[in-house]
């Protein structure tokens, strides 16, 4: 998946507005999505194409209608890539600190603040 395409698609307020509309009501046609919007049909169509390219919107046929569905999976993948990873490092560090502080008092707590940063998650479950 092209991460750049996802960030680019999300960088535009009109496109985020379209995603919000699909979040409220999934499976809309272009005509339904245009309703009440201050954009031309062409502009909406262009935005939808970009969202589809970024895999944030998926289309399916229903009879002659083309329905648009919100696909939040790329946002989860970005969340995992850009938030989960860093968060985990901090959490690992905190739990190590806690373990050390709760262990018998020692001079050197043995916490190495860089130890968990940038390392892969441990294998095994």
């Amino acid at each position, binding site marked *: 998946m092209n991460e750049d395409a996802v960030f680019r698609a999300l960088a535009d307020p009109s496109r985020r507005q379209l995603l919000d509309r699909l979040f409220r009501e999934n499976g809309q046609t272009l005509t339904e999505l245009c309703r009440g919007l201050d954009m031309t049909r062409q502009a909406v169509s262009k935005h939808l194409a970009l969202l589809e390219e970024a895999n944030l919107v*998926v289309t399916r046929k229903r009879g002659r209608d083309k*329905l648009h*569905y919100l*696909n939040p*999976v790329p946002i989860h993948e970005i969340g*995992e890539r850009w938030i*989960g990873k860093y968060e985990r490092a901090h959490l690992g560090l905190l739990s190590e600190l806690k373990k050390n502080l709760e262990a018998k008092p020692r001079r050197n707590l043995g916490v190495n603040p860089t130890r968990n940063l940038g390392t892969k998650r441990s*294998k095994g*479950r």
Partner: protein
Amino acid sequence: MNKNGFVYTTYIRTTPEKLWDALTKPEFTRQYWSEVWHETTWERGAEWKMMIPDGRTTDSGEVVEVERPRRLVLRWRNEFRPELKAEGYSRCVFELEQQGDMVKLTIVHELEQDVAKSKFIEAVSNGWPIILSSLKSLLETGEALEATRKWPKGK
């Protein structure tokens, strides 16, 4: 497809055969799908159940279509929560499509009857994105995401 369902897709750097196994075999699903597994023979018309670690069945139904490694269709009803069970059966379609060195996985999940504001669809649509991210992570890096490794305690 009806409006009251959803379509999720993700692109995974793997082969259709590997992805198929990851979707169907217990040793894989347990890793990225909160320890659940499918109990079925994966033959057309076979009974299908989704099991959790304490041995309970959360969902059940049947295998409607099976075409390894391209297409799998399940008839699927929740057995766990009365309000979800009341909405009846859903249809869950898995499509696997090779695109270059990636496989495009599409999941379409919808109720057989078009229920407005379906609680079943809300429940499964909250679950799929994280499960799919974790499946992708497992196949591409060898590790599932932390959040999906264990069945939540007390559920």
